[in-house]
């Protein structure tokens, strides 16, 4: 394992510290317990938006703290959901009197820890609503299991719900739009290489020199199946097909197409994947209204990508376009 780190045990604290130094204009870092809030938090009268989860998915979530998006991010250990003693003070710190929305990726650990925190924050007088993100169509038979994972769609939920909060929607409305985004987005990912969790010191799975793993998540979990390496267009077809099957777009539908890098993928490869995905959608009569290409939700240094398709309505487009100023997503400000 070769990483530009000092000590596996200090990866998260040092990352957060460095992030805080680099983005002093945006965020304030609380070290113990670890969470980050936007500098002007709490914004009076505005619904507070909190998300969090295991670290290792940077820029998620700290990179999305700022005007128009999250009010706080709560980083857990690498690939480990944070604990209530972090989530509760973060929730309180961003409550501007209008309540708080938790955006939670659907993993048992995240759900349990946020659930506990929400209950306790609620008991202390902060009304909390939860938006559960579960957009990963790689997880089949999800009814009988822990359900679908939250992956790429999370970024879109955070942006759009963040814009709703910023324009003054109340806590139920912010949660509702967050849920609407989640209901209209589907994602699927591929890994060309694994990643190495710093404290584990070994790759999370082994892939042959000519194999790729289809249906991976963002934690170095193995995917649903392994296939021999094939050209990018074929792989994109394999990701897009289950996404579109599940999304059931009408002819003439408008979508946001999001090609996300897993951390170790060159931008060129993401654009090659985007190119084919855009062509396939065009052939199907789907209009790509908005796009996003880059490393937005990652799995450490994994090589691979995920494709998310969000069915847009006019309000979502408006909220997507609304100004945002965070470390990783910024426009209009």
């Amino acid at each position: 394992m070769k990483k530009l780190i000092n000590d596996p045990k200090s990866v998260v604290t040092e990352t957060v510290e460095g992030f805080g130094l680099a983005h002093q204009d945006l965020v304030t870092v609380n070290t113990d317990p670890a969470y980050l809030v936007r500098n002007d938090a709490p914004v009076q009268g505005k619904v507070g938006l909190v998300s969090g989860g295991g670290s290792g998915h940077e820029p998620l979530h700290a990179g999305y703290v700022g005007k128009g998006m999250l009010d706080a991010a709560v980083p857990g250990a690498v690939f480990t959901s944070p604990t209530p003693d972090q989530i509760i003070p973060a929730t309180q710190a961003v409550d501007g009197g209008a309540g708080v929305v938790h955006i939670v990726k659907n993993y048992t650990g995240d759900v349990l820890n946020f659930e506990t925190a929400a209950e306790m924050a609620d008991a202390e007088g902060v009304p909390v609503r939860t938006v559960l993100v579960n957009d990963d169509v790689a997880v089949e038979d999800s009814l009988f299991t822990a359900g679908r994972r939250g992956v790429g769609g999370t970024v879109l939920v955070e942006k759009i719900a963040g814009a709703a909060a910023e324009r003054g929607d109340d806590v139920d409305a912010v949660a509702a739009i967050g849920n609407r985004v989640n209901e209209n987005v589907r994602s699927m990912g591929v890994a060309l290489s694994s990643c190495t969790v710093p404290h584990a010191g070994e790759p999370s799975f082994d892939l042959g020199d000519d194999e790729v793993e289809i249906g991976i998540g963002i934690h170095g979990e193995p995917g649903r199946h392994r296939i021999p390496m094939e050209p990018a267009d074929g792989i994109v077809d394999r990701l897009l097909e289950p996404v579109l099957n599940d999304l059931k777009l009408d002819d003439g539908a408008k979508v946001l197409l999001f090609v996300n890098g897993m951390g170790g993928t060159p931008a060129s490869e993401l654009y090659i994947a985007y190119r084919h995905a855009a062509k396939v959608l065009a052939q199907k009569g789907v209009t790509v209204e908005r796009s996003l290409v880059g490393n937005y939700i990652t799995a450490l240094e994994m090589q691979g990508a995920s494709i998310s398709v969000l069915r847009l309505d006019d309000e979502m487009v408006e909220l997507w376009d609304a100004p945002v100023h965070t470390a990783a997503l910024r426009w209009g400000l």
Partner: protein
Amino acid sequence: MADTLNAAWAEAWLRNSAAVVAEHRKELIDLDRAIGDADHGENLDRGFSAVVQKLDESNPETPGACFKLAAMTLMSKVGGAAGPLFGTAYLRAGTTVGESTELDSPLLAQALAAARDGIVARGKAEVGDKTMIDAWTPAVDAATEAAEAGAGPADVLEAAAVAAQQGAESTDPLVARKGRASYLAERSAGHRDPGAASSALLLRAAADAAAAAGNGAGEAGASGA
């Protein structure tokens, strides 16, 4: 053998747990690497190290206080799925034993059952879902049976530990239906569930602490004839 177990035993259990988790840290990481996200051993090690530190700082006077200390610490230090699940387990065990300074076999079996019920309440897993419940439920059954048959607490825990270990092994061929391993579907078969494996280690630590207490070894204590 002793008829009851006291705070010294509870503390010894927790300290043993920390030692055994540290020792098996890598093994638990590797189990989780295979069908999860490679953090289970690291998370528990961080959590139980913190428990030991808390024990060094405070002096919980009852088994219930020990369990609550463990519950709070694990809840705030472990994270992931295991943090709230084990945290709830200790919390429910603590509530069940209340202020008692001495735990006899029936109370001990009840405490284990409450711990298991807490995990089920939070995680909704059933036996066969390939989770820690596959270790806990056989352990609770064995402990209850032993207690009903009049066994002493050390034997109750020994029965629980043996059953938990078998339960953990029983997860090897299973297809996961809960937790992160469920994303793998069929590919989760052929690997032991990390949470079941760690649960077996914790219950083994409990039994060993009780056996040591019964033998008057170390500081770990048991009371009664």
